[in-house]
C-alpha cells in the first residue's frame, strides 16, 4: 500500500510564544494590575489635588475680591466723606468762603467737580477742576434723576459719561443739610488707576459694574468707554442673589474667557466688584501634578515589570529552563544528567524529584536492558534450536521417505493391497511432517533474520505454470477447478525472489484448496499502480469475522473443529505475511462465511519497472 503523508501545517512562532509563554502571561497580568492600581491611585491623588487646589484658588479669589472691594470702598468712601462734609456746611458759610470747595477739590483729585444745592435745586456753591463746570451749568437740575434721587434721601451713582474735554466721569449725588443736595463728578481715570493697580496672579483681573450692570472700571478702558453691559449675565445674577453679592464660581465671563471669579458689593453705590482668574492658571498646578503622577506611575510600572521579569528569570525561568533541558537530555537517553543545584524552594523539591526519577529510570533501564538481553538470547537460542532441529529432523525424514518410496516402487518385491495402502499412508504423513518442519524452519529463519534472498528477473507466467502443474493436481484430487488469470497489463518479466513469491502463492493456493470442498480456486495476477497483486480467491467455507482479525497471527488456527489432517501448525499465513512484508509489500483478506475468501498479496513493482527499462 502506498504510504499516506500528513503535511505539517506551519504555525506562527510568535503566536505560539504569545499563547504558551508563562512569562508573557505573568507580565501581562502584573502589568494590568499595576496599570489599574496606578490609574486608580493617580485618579484619587489627582482628584484630591484638584479639590484642594480649587478650594485654595477660591479662597484666593474671595480674598482678591475682598481686597479689591476694600480698595474701591475706601476710594468711594473718601469721595463721600468730602461730599458729606460739604453737605454739612452752613449755607451762609459757603457763600462767605467760595474758595473752600476749591481747596477741597485739590485735596481729593478724584473729584472733578462738586456742587452744593438747596432743596429747590439752586446752586449754592460749586467748584471744578476741568476747563468748565458741568453740573452747575445745567438748567434742568430740579428734574435730573441724580437731584430727585438725592432729594429723596438716597445716594445716586450715575453712568459713565465723557466730558467736553474727553474725561470720563460719573455723577454722584447725596442728600445734604437743610434738605439740600451735594453732587459731584467722579473722575473715572482715578478709579481706573486704582483698579488697574489691583493685579494678582498671572491672569488675574478686577472690574467693577454698577447697579445697572454697566461696566464702569476695567483693565481694558475701551470696554468701559464702549458701554459694555453685564446686565442679564449669569454670573451677575448669581452674585446679585447673594447677600452683599458675595459669590464665587467658575464661568465663562463677558470676554469669553473661562474663569474662576469672586464678587463683592460696594454698599454705598451698589457696585459689584469682580475678581477673576483664568482657569488655565487655576488648573495649571493640578495639570502639572497629574503629569508628574503619570510620569512617576509609568516609570514605577516599568521598573516594577523589569524587576519582576528579572526576578522571575532568576527565581523561576532559569530553574525551569534547567529542568526543561534536563528533561530533554534525559529524554535523549542521558540518564546520568542531574538538575539539582541547591534551590531550597518548591523548584528545588521538583528538581530533587526529577533526579530521583532519573535515577529510577536508570535502574529500570538497566533492568530492562538485562531483561531484553535475556529475552534476545532466549529468542536467538529458540531460533537456533528451531533451525538446527528442523535441519536435523529432515535427515531421518528423508530416510523414512526414501525407504517408503523403495517399498512403494516394489524394489523388494510386489506388495499386496494392504501393504501398498500402508506405504502410501507412511508417505503422506511423512510429507505432512516435512511441510511442518519446513514451516518451522522458515519461521525460525525469518525471526533470526537469516532468510536468504535471491533477487533475479523472472516471468510471472512461469510461476503461474508451475503453480498450475503442482497445485492443479491437488485441486483435481478434490474435484476442484484451478483457474489462473494473468492481466495483460502485467509486465512479462518481473524482478524479485521467485522462490519466495512461489512459496507465498503455493501457501495461499494450498490453503484455498484445503478449505474448499466444491467449486473453484482462482489465482489472478494483476497490475496495481506501484504494486502488483497476486489474488487467490475460492468458493470455500470462508472465515468468521472474529477470526479474520487474527488470521495472520502465528500459531493461529481458524477453526479448532477442522480435522487434524486439515490443520497445519498455524504458521503458513503468518509466514506469507512476513515474507510479503520483507519484500516491501503486504497481504489483505476479505471473506464471507459460507461463500469463500480472497487473499491479495501486494508486492512493489520498482524492480519490475527497472527490468522493463532494460528489456
Amino acid at each position: 500500500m502506498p504510504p499516506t503523508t500528513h503535511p505539517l501545517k506551519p504555525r506562527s512562532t510568535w503566536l505560539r510564544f504569545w499563547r504558551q509563554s508563562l512569562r508573557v502571561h505573568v507580565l501581562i497580568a502584573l502589568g494590568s494590575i499595576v496599570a489599574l492600581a496606578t490609574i486608580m491611585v493617580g485618579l484619587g491623588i489627582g482628584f484630591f489635588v484638584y479639590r484642594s487646589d480649587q478650594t485654595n484658588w477660591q479662597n484666593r479669589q474671595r480674598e482678591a475680591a475682598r481686597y479689591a472691594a476694600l480698595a474701591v470702598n475706601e476710594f468711594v468712601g473718601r469721595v463721600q466723606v468730602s461730599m458729606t462734609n460739604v453737605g454739612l456746611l452752613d449755607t451762609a458759610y459757603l457763600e462767605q468762603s467760595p474758595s473752600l470747595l476749591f481747596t477741597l477739590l485739590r485735596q481729593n483729585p478724584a473729584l472733578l467737580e462738586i456742587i452744593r444745592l438747596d432743596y429747590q435745586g439752586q446752586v449754592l456753591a460749586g467748584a471744578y477742576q476741568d476747563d468748565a463746570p458741568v453740573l452747575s451749568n445745567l438748567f434742568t437740575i430740579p428734574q435730573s434723576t441724580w437731584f430727585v434721587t438725592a432729594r429723596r434721601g438716597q445716594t445716586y451713582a450715575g453712568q459713565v459719561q465723557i466730558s467736553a474735554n474727553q474725561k470720563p466721569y460719573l455723577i454722584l449725588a447725596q442728600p445734604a443739610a437743610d434738605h439740600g443736595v451735594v453732587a459731584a463728578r467722579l473722575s473715572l481715570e482715578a478709579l481706573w488707576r486704582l483698579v488697574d493697580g489691583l493685579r494678582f496672579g498671572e491672569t488675574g483681573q478686577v472690574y467693577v459694574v454698577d447697579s445697572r450692570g454697566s461696566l464702569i472700571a476695567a483693565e481694558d478702558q475701551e470696554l468701559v468707554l464702549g458701554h459694555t453691559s453685564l446686565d442679564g449675565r449669569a454670573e451677575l445674577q448669581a452674585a446679585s442673589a447673594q447677600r452683599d453679592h458675595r459669590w464665587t464660581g467658575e464661568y465663562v465671563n463677558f470676554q469669553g474667557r473661562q474663569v474662576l471669579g469672586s464678587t463683592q458689593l460696594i454698599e454705598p453705590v451698589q457696585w459689584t466688584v469682580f475678581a477673576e482668574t483664568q482657569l488655565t492658571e487655576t488648573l495649571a498646578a493640578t495639570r502639572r501634578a497629574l503629569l508628574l503622577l503619570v510620569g512617576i506611575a509609568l516609570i514605577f510600572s516599568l521598573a516594577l515589570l523589569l524587576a519582576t521579569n528579572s526576578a522571575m528569570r532568576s527565581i523561576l525561568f532559569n530553574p525551569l529552563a534547567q529542568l526543561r533541558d534536563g528533561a530533554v537530555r534525559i529524554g535523549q537517553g542521558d540518564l546520568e544528567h542531574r538538575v539539582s543545584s541547591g534551590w531550597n524552594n518548591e523548584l528545588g523539591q521538583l528538581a530533587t524529584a526529577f533526579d530521583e526519577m532519573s535515577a529510577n529510570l536508570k535502574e529500570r533501564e538497566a533492568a530492562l536492558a538485562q531483561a531484553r538481553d535475556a529475552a534476545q538470547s532466549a529468542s536467538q537460542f529458540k531460533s537456533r534450536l528451531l533451525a538446527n532441529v528442523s535441519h536435523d529432523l529432515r535427515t531421518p525424514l528423508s530416510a523414512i521417505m526414501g525407504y517408503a518410496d523403495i517399498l512403494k516402487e516394489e524394489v523388494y518385491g510386489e506388495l499386496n493391497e494392504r501393504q501398498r495402502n500402508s506405504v502410501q499412508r507412511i508417505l503422506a504423513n511423512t510429507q505432512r511432517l516435512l511441510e511442518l518442519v519446513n514451516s518451522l524452519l522458515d519461521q525460525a529463519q525469518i525471526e533470526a533474520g537469516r532468510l536468504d534472498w535471491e533477487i533475479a528477473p523472472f516471468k510471472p507466467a512461469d510461476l503461474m505454470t508451475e503453480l498450475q502443474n503442482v497445485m492443479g493436481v491437488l485441486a483435481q484430487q478434490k474435484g476442484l477447478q484451478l483457474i489462473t488469470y494473468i492481466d495483460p497489463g502485467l509486465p512479462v518479466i518481473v524482478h524479485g525472489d521467485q522462490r519466495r513469491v512461489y512459496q507465498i502463492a503455493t501457501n495461499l493456493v494450498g490453503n484455498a484448496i484445503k478449505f474448499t470442498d466444491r467449486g473453484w480456486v482462482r489465482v489472478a495476477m494483476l497490475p496495481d499502480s506501484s504494486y502488483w497483486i497476486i489474488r487467490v480467491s475460492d468458493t470455500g467455507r470462508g472465515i468468521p469475522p472474529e477470526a479474520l482479525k487474527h488470521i495472520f497471527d502465528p500459531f493461529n488456527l481458524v477453526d479448532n473443529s477442522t480435522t487434524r489432517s486439515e490443520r497445519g501448525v498455524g504458521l503458513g499465513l503468518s509466514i506469507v505475511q512476513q515474507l510479503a512484508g520483507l519484500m516491501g509489500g503486504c497481504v489483505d483478506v476479505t471473506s464471507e462465511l459460507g461463500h469463500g475468501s480472497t487473499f491479495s498479496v501486494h508486492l512493489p513493482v520498482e524492480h519490475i519497472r527497472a527490468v522493463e527499462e532494460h528489456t
Partner: protein
Amino acid sequence: MSQPLALIIEDETDLGEIFSMALQAAGYETQQAFTGPDALTKLAGCAPDLVVLDLHLPGLDGGQVLKDIRRDARLRRTRVMLATADAAFARTLEKEADFVLLKPISFSQLRDLARRLKPNPPGEPGVGA
C-alpha cells in the same frame, strides 16, 4: 564396459543406501564414501560417471570435494549431482555442479534422473555423450 560407475558421497548411511539402491535400479554400479577424505581416496582410485555429493561431510566439506573433482582432468567426464538440504550452500556451487537436488530426495526421482544421465552404451545415442 559393463555398467557405468556412480560414487555416492553421503555421511548418512541410510540415505547413502537409498541413493545406492536408486542408482542401482537405474543400472549403475555403485560405490559409497562417508567422509570428505574418504571420498578423495575413492576418487583417486576410480573415475565415476556420476557422483552424488552431500555438502555437509565430516573431515572435508562437499564444496571442496567438488572443486577437487573439477580440477582433476581425469574426471572431466564425471557428472556431479549435489544432494543437500542446505539450499544456500548449494546455490554458491550451482555453476560447478551439473545438478542440484534439495533433500528430501525421493527414490523414484533420483532413479529416473540417473537413468536419463546414463552414458550411452556403444552404438546407442544418449544424453551428454
